């Protein structure tokens, strides 16, 4: 009995030892500075930005309530809720779209002959290496009033006046799906690549239909890849900043833009800090629930 528990604790120690370098770096340049943000969320806003030392819960209250400027009364800030809802909605849609497009793409690449596979992987990697700003800008070029889509449609005689696509939620959605597609495809590919295709033949041998094979055989086994891909798309798109800024035109804010506003012209660093903490907590809860549900039933021992 004691041998087993000794082996177990040796394993645990080794697990920690292997993880320590990563943890150290992260504490120094990611988690640690967040403590500063946490502290700031309980302070008072400075006159011209920054903070002043003094405890206050106004930062946190400001997430859901805003003080009417002129009579000082506290009321529910439905503008805030609109922004939250827009962010969640767009991020979920982006994740779904990238999955619906990304899964077939990853599958396609993984099922090519080994020689061709390298070429396709090569092809899908290249757009990723174009800078984010440039890609967002390129989408702008496609969607603007005198952009590619409108020009083609007008020349083909299908429309009279340009369809206004830019500066809408739709534009932001297209932009985000375009930008985050890579993050869905790569983990999916890594998982599908490992998938044993013989299982498929076994499934068909047992007279299963293609849909059944897809649902019952493929998807459960590549689940880790799906989980990884979804996380890599949903979470960053929730906090996205550049894409909604460029394609939304500053009017349709998402949470990321709203937080940035507090550190800029909004001059309310504590509110920005509190919003960030709140966002973080929501995401953590969502992640825990999702990962638990996704890994339930799958054998951790492979």
């Amino acid at each position, binding site marked *: 009995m004691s041998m087993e528990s000794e082996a177990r604790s040796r394993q645990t120690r080794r697990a920690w030892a292997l993880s320590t370098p990563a943890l150290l770096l992260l504490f120094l340049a990611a988690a640690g500075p967040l403590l500063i943000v946490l502290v700031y969320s309980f302070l008072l806003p400075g006159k*011209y930005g920054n903070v002043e030392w003094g405890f206050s819960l106004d930062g946190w209250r400001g997430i859901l309530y805003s003080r009417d*400027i002129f009579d000082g009364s506290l009321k529910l800030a439905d503008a805030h809720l*609109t*922004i939250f809802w827009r962010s969640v909605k767009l991020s979920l849609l982006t994740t779904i779209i990238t999955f619906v497009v990304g899964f077939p793409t990853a599958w396609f690449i993984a099922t090519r002959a080994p020689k061709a596979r390298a070429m396709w992987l090569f092809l899908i990697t290249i757009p990723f290496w174009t800078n984010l700003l440039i890609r967002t800008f390129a989408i702008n070029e496609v969607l603007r009033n*005198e952009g590619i889509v409108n020009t083609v449609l007008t020349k083909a005689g299908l429309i009279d006046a340009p369809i206004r696509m*830019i500066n809408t939620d739709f534009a932001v959605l297209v932009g985000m799906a375009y930008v985050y597609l890579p993050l869905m495809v790569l983990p999916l590919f890594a998982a599908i690549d490992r998938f044993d295709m013989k299982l498929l033949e076994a499934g068909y041998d047992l007279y299963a239909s293609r849909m059944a094979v897809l649902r019952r055989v493929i998807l459960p086994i590549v689940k880790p890849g799906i989980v990884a891909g979804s996380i890599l798309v949903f979470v960053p798109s929730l906090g996205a900043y550049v894409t909604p800024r460029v394609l939304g035109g*500053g*009017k349709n804010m998402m949470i990321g833009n*709203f937080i940035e506003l507090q550190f800029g012209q909004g*001059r309310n660093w504590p509110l920005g800090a509190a919003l960030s903490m709140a966002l973080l907590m929501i995401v953590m809860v969502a992640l825990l629930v999702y990962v638990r549900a996704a890994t339930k039933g799958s054998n951790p021992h492979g």
Partner: protein
Amino acid sequence: MKKLLGASALLLASTSLAHAAGELQLFNWGNYTSPELLEKFEKETGIKVTVTDYDSNDTALAKVEAGGHGFDLVVPSANYVPIWVEKGLLTELDRSKLPHFGNIAPQWIDVAWDKGRKYTVPWQWGSTGIAVNTSVYGGDINTSAVFLDVPEELKGKINVVPEMNDVVNLAIWYVGGEPCTEDTEVLKKARDALLAAKPDWLSMDYGATEKLSNNDWAASVNWNGSTMRARLANPAVKYGYPKEGYPLFMDSVGLLADAKNVEEAYKFIDFIMLPENAAMLSAFARYANGITGSEAFMPEDMKTAPEVVTPEEFQASGHFLPTCSPKAQEYMTAIWTELQK
């Protein structure tokens, strides 16, 4: 693995040692510094100037306040200069190192935000008004009604630049108030006007020069120099001076208290006070400067441009924005935040 560590340590060390003599770090608004001027400066003094951009006074302030920024010169807007001074971020200028100080036009020396020019020297100044593509809208463009009570032709096609001070004050003037007012009645009216007009706006973004030139926007609340550049690319664009009242702005160069290249900084500040160099700055961004004698060197099209030479009838409506009391500032910020949501 060890070799990698050694190499990277060497790399880190070398990048911090590479502090060349004869260099200057200028922190300025985007698209506001003439590259030709920098070339000329380098040729005459051997000092290489690196420009880093910001697009708002608040960002610049935050960056510098946090420390370790590495900049030497900064160019804040007029109403922010007292804030920079109050926070001790700017050094008083040593006049003995600025032999051409006398070139500053007299009306720009005793300005409200820096009496006697103890901390700053003029960079460029201009106004905020309304730029309209007259082939889309032919009505009166010299009024804030263009963006606060949007005409049919411009609905969904007009942009409002996200500059709090400019926009909120234009609205305050429109409803009959004065900037920096603490009168809640006036402020309420201004806020309501802005919120009512917002659904008719296309966006609240920068980049007017480009977007007016390529017809992405039919109109925008915009600065005069940027509008002139747009007009040169797209002749239908005209600049409107809101007769209810419009803000004038001036940006000035200040020396940061923790600047490393102080001597080089003084050389640069002195350099831009020479008329031909000030004219170079103006020729690039298309804004007027505050140096006497520079008119002789200005490009022809600026001498008659309606954006730069304000027509008689609108001159009285332009005012510099004062630095507001914290209370007034709070009100404006609250209105702005509500608007931005």
